[in-house]
């Protein structure tokens, strides 16, 4: 992997996001609004809300991550800079990894920070809040990495947004199961560590596997 390219792309994406701060905060706004709809939909019963809270938070994080994916490579693809970036030796992997890292820093990390707040709103016991936080901390990078593959595969397509959701969500099922399961396990009086360990294993697998797949998909798209 080309470290210089990684650093340059990562810093550039952060700078671009900083210049369009409102746009960068949209996934977080979506996350909060979508999660707030659940009490309105299923009713304010604290018992029910407490039961579904980890799942609601996780599903909303999943959707927020997917909905913020289409622009990941789109602007660079449209103005031709992506093609130029990929010319450098070993740059495909670096671009793929840097874009996923930048996506997580911009849209993933704020969700992780705000998730305990949402947990409180949904009546999650305080013992489960740190677990939810850690599960999202391990899980949201997985979503950014998998989403990167989807964004690269659907680059420049008319219906890219819906396609990413359809392609990536089945692949994200394990992350959802172990992520939401960690908090649910605490509720059931079990240790969350098996869930978190498996989530960590998934993260490592995605760190190794997703950037090459994204890089290959980028090459197909700009070929």
């Amino acid at each position, binding site marked *: 992997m080309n470290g210089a390219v990684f650093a340059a792309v990562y810093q550039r994406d952060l700078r671009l996001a900083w210049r369009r701060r409102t746009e960068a905060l949209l996934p977080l706004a979506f996350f909060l609004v979508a999660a707030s709809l659940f009490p309105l939909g299923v009713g304010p019963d604290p018992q029910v809300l407490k039961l579904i809270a980890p799942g609601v938070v996780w599903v909303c994080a999943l959707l927020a991550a997917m909905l913020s994916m289409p622009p990941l490579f789109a602007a660079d693809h449209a103005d031709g800079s992506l093609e130029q970036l990929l010319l450098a030796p070993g740059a495909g992997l670096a671009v793929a990894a840097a874009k996923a890292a930048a996506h997580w820093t911009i849209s993933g990390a704020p969700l992780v920070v705000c998730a305990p707040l949402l947990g409180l709103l949904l009546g999650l016991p305080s013992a489960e809040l740190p677990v939810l936080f850690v599960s999202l901390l391990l899980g949201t990078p997985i979503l950014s990495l998998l989403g990167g*593959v989807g964004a690269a*595969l*659907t680059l420049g*397509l*008319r*219906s890219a947004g819906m*396609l990413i959701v*359809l*392609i990536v*969500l*089945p*692949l994200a*099922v*394990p992350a959802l*199961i*172990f992520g939401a*399961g960690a908090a*649910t*396990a605490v509720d059931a009086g079990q240790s969350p560590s098996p869930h978190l360990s*498996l989530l960590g294993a*998934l993260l490592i*697998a995605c760190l190794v*596997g997703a950037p090459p*797949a994204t890089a*290959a*998909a980028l090459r*197909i*798209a700009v*070929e």
Partner: protein
Amino acid sequence: MHAVNSPATLTAVRPRLTWFTFASPANFYRLAGVLGPVCGLVAAAFAVAGLWMGFFVAPSDAVQGEVYRIIFIHVPAAWLSMLLYVAMAFWAALGWFLNARMAFIFARAIAPTGALFTVLALWTGSLWGRPTWGTWWVWDARLTSELILLFLYLGYMALVAAIDDTRRADKAGALLAIVGVVNVPVIYFSVVWWNTLHQGSSLTMGKEQHMASTMLVAMLLLTLACWAYAFAVVFVRAQAIVLEREGDTAWARALVAASNQG
């Protein structure tokens, strides 16, 4: 090589049979034209035999009565739904590494049949679950993973259909199929674990400890019928894709002209 210019080899039009003979779309088209109908006939024969065995020879089940007979279509459909995904990923990977056009065409031709069998497995499972479990659907590990398999098929087909450029569609679809097949075991085991953790409905299919041999034979016959059907449909669909893509080649034009005259 030594006799390339001799008159004998010049008159011989039959291509030498190698591993790559049928990687040529023209050769494959002719082969599929023969194999497709043959597989179709084989499928029909096995289906008639299997259905006859299943409905008239196999005894009623001691516990479930007559309703168990849905197994004869349910189990073959479920087997094929999984097998065809692996087959699709295999051809996609082969296309990816060898850059072979026909391999990509196979992957694309298999996908709709695989999705069809997945829907059939879910549908018949649902029809079977209603009388035996008392519900159309439970979030059981097998049902859930089969549903996710359907989503994987749909994602592949949607992606391939959304890309106009054939080359890009083939390669992007191949990448997705390979990523999907790597993920299938992970998804399956996570769903199994999720299901046991939630202490989901403990409904399991009664283990057929003493499955009557006639039942087994009927199921195997219908499995072979589904196999042959899948082959037949994939051949025909692949033929259609070949014609679509090779429409401007000389052999395809000659073929169309000949079929217009005849």
